[in-house]
């Protein structure tokens, strides 16, 4: 019975193969470590990966790098443009000589993972050594979204602030003298500006649906200053009155402007958000919540009506906080695997904290500067419509979405709930939000 004696051998061999593959799988998870043992005063070359791709953006980065190399003639920077987050993560996982030393990412939500996993180096020792206090250098929201649970692994590299864009011609025609400051004024203006037709609208005052491009739950919640998590890191959407208030306000406005179905049908006629077919640019909506970049788009696209910007209105019971807004932005840090972390820090410090560098980069790509000094700099774009966003960025009440261990998963959960709620699928708001809390907590527990 030769076969009967071979079977155990085959089984053993198969198991051994499987174990070997499993060991290989475990070994292919990257483990190289870097360090801050390099001498930043010696001649060295570091690599910087970023995601910008437009010629004007790439030129702005190159100009800043040239200025940095002039200041630090011994540090040469190899810049790699247009790198996606997936590529950056892969490189950080693998390490090695081809991996970047300095990385930037547009995915601010991933700060929690970058910091908690240690894949982005802790910047606290570097900040201390350079006598930089994040609390006095960066606006509060920006300082907040670049750290996770006290672990600061990133710095803000320019920011985005959200405010109100309004059609001045439409305001004039509707007899509205100034932009609204409270949500009750805003709702009244939205109704006045809306021109309904039998099947839709010839113009809508404001698109409140959560799919209306930037009119997302998290952007609106910036006006209430929601905290999202309690002191123990548990989701507190149901317990936070700001969250319920925002959903109730949105639901009322949806109803006032014609109802969800009618608004959704109108929304499907909107063009691409980042083109001249944007509904605010085409006049399909008279007011919009949007980021500071739209000021440049509106000029470049040559819109034919008169427009202006203002902070987005705040709840009536928080009128004193008018001027606040939601903030996010690009982040920059040092790869854990970098062997040249001291030299890398010099570049990070320069790009994120040197006032001239921050201002020139902000002016070039029409983003908000990310330091207090740059926000106050006379060299920063002084266009009054852009100025609105500088003020929002510097406002102490402005807020952001906090970093989480599993990226922006909690925001997706909240968004999904918002879509159900606005379409009338969730009759009990409190119970619905409690369900979202449970979902978020389970996902975070799974990620830890």
């Amino acid at each position, binding site marked *: *019975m030769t076969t009967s004696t071979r079977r155990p051998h085959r089984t053993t061999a198969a198991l051994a*193969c*499987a174990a070997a*593959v*499993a060991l*290989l*799988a*475990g070994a*292919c*998870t*990257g*483990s190289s470590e870097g360090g801050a043992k390099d001498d930043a005063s010696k001649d060295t070359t570091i690599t910087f990966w970023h*995601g910008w791709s437009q010629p004007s953006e790439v030129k702005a980065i190159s100009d800043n790098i040239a200025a940095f190399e002039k200041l630090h003639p011994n540090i040469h920077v190899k810049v790699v443009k247009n790198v996606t*987050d*997936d590529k950056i*993560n892969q490189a*950080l*996982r693998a390490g090695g000589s081809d991996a970047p030393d300095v990385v930037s990412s*547009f*995915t*601010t*939500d991933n700060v929690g*993972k970058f910091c908690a*996993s*240690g*894949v982005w180096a802790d910047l606290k020792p570097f900040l201390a050594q350079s006598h930089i206090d994040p609390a006095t250098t960066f606006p509060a929201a920006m300082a907040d979204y670049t750290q996770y649970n006290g672990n600061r692994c990133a710095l803000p590299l320019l920011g985005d602030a959200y405010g109100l864009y309004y059609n001045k011609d439409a305001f004039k025609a509707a007899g509205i003298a100034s932009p609204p400051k409270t949500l009750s004024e805003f709702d009244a203006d939205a109704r006045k500006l809306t021109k309904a037709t039998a099947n*839709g609208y010839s113009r809508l005052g404001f698109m409140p649906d959560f*799919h*209306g*491009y930037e009119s997302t739950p998290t952007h609106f919640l910036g006006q209430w200053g929601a905290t999202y998590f309690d002191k123990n890191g548990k989701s507190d959407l149901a317990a936070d009155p700001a969250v319920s208030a925002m959903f109730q306000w949105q639901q009322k406005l949806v109803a006032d402007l014609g109802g969800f179905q009618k608004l*959704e*049908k*109108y*929304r*499907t*006629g*909107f063009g*691409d*958000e*980042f083109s001249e077919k944007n509904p605010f640019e085409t006049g399909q909506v008279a007011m919009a919540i949007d980021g500071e970049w739209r000021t440049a788009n509106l000029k470049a696209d040559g819109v034919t009506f008169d427009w202006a910007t203002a902070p987005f209105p705040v709840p009536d019971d928080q009128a004193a906080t008018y001027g606040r807004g939601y903030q*996010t932005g*690009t982040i920059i840090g040092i790869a854990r695997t970098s062997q040249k972390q001291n030299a890398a820090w010099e570049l990070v410090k320069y790009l994120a904290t040197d006032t001239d560098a921050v201002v020139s980069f902000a002016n070039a790509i029409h983003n908000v500067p990310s330091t207090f000094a740059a926000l106050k700099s006379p060299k920063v774009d002084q266009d009054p419509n852009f100025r609105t966003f500088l003020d929002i960025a510097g406002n102490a009440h402005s807020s952001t979405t906090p970093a989480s261990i*599993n*990226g*922006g*998963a909690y*925001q*997706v*959960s909240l*968004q*999904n709930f918002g*879509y*159900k709620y606005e*379409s009338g*699928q969730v009759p009990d708001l409190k119970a619905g939000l409690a369900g979202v809390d449970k*979902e978020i907590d*389970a*996902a975070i527990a*799974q*990620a830890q």
Partner: protein
Amino acid sequence: MAALLPVPAALRAKRRREAVRTLAFLSPWLIGFAVFFGYPLVSTLYFSFMHYDGFAQPTFSGLKNWRYVLTSYPFFWQGVRNTLWLVVVMVTLRVVFGLGVGMLITKIRTGAGFFRTAFYLPYLAPPVAATIGFAFLFNPGTGPVNHLLGTLGLPQPGWFTDPSWSKPALTLLALWGVGDLMVIFMAALLDVPREQYEAAELDGAGAWQRFRFVTYPNISPIVMFAVVTGVIQTLQYYTQALVAGKVASGIIGNSGQQFEPGYPQGSTWTLPQMVYSLGFQRFDYGSACVVALLLFAVAMAFTALLLRRRSGLMGAED
């Protein structure tokens, strides 16, 4: 088995040499299979029992990932339902439509070349471009399809923006690109012996009986092939569902932007999208591996079930 005779040493050596030679010829495939299938499969199984975020070293977590996916992850069962819906409806309609178009074109006397090309060309369109095009054509507010339906006094569905219509809209997109199946069915139909039709006609068989007793038995292996490959492809359905959801939701996908998977209301959320989202957006590679393994198991089960019908695979005369 007491009758087993000792094998002469020379014969054993010859068999060994033959085995080595066979293995040598098979080695390119074997290496490819081991590297690109065996290794990823075992790694996926390994990671499904590990807590792994893609950065730190994986740690053993037992059945935690399996429990999370099957009991706590809110989108899993919705993804299963959507994927199964697409498997049942989309695959069935594609096979029926592909066969129907193939039969029609084989019967056309004039202009067959034109129709063959016209039906095949959409299959060559890149999936992303085709889906974006469809999303614009079926845009409920500005698309020509609803404009036409409105002109004819017919209801105007929300298509990719309506959870009830999003999967049917994706099915229409799949039917538009049915050229691959049409070509395969045409080749099979043209291979059916003409004399069998003539004999059936002499016996008084009508059109349906000729299809039932002559055409189908001859092309059944091809039908089975279309179903098996269709099921596997549909279980891997990713690009069209993702692009349609993004375009219709208005979120084209700026870097760093959170987006709702499976717009509208999770109705286009499929298991392959879940694998990407869990692994690369939530940094939960363990759970992503669980979904990938379940997907693999379902694909294997479907395929095994269909392949058990040996007669279907081998044809009537076998």
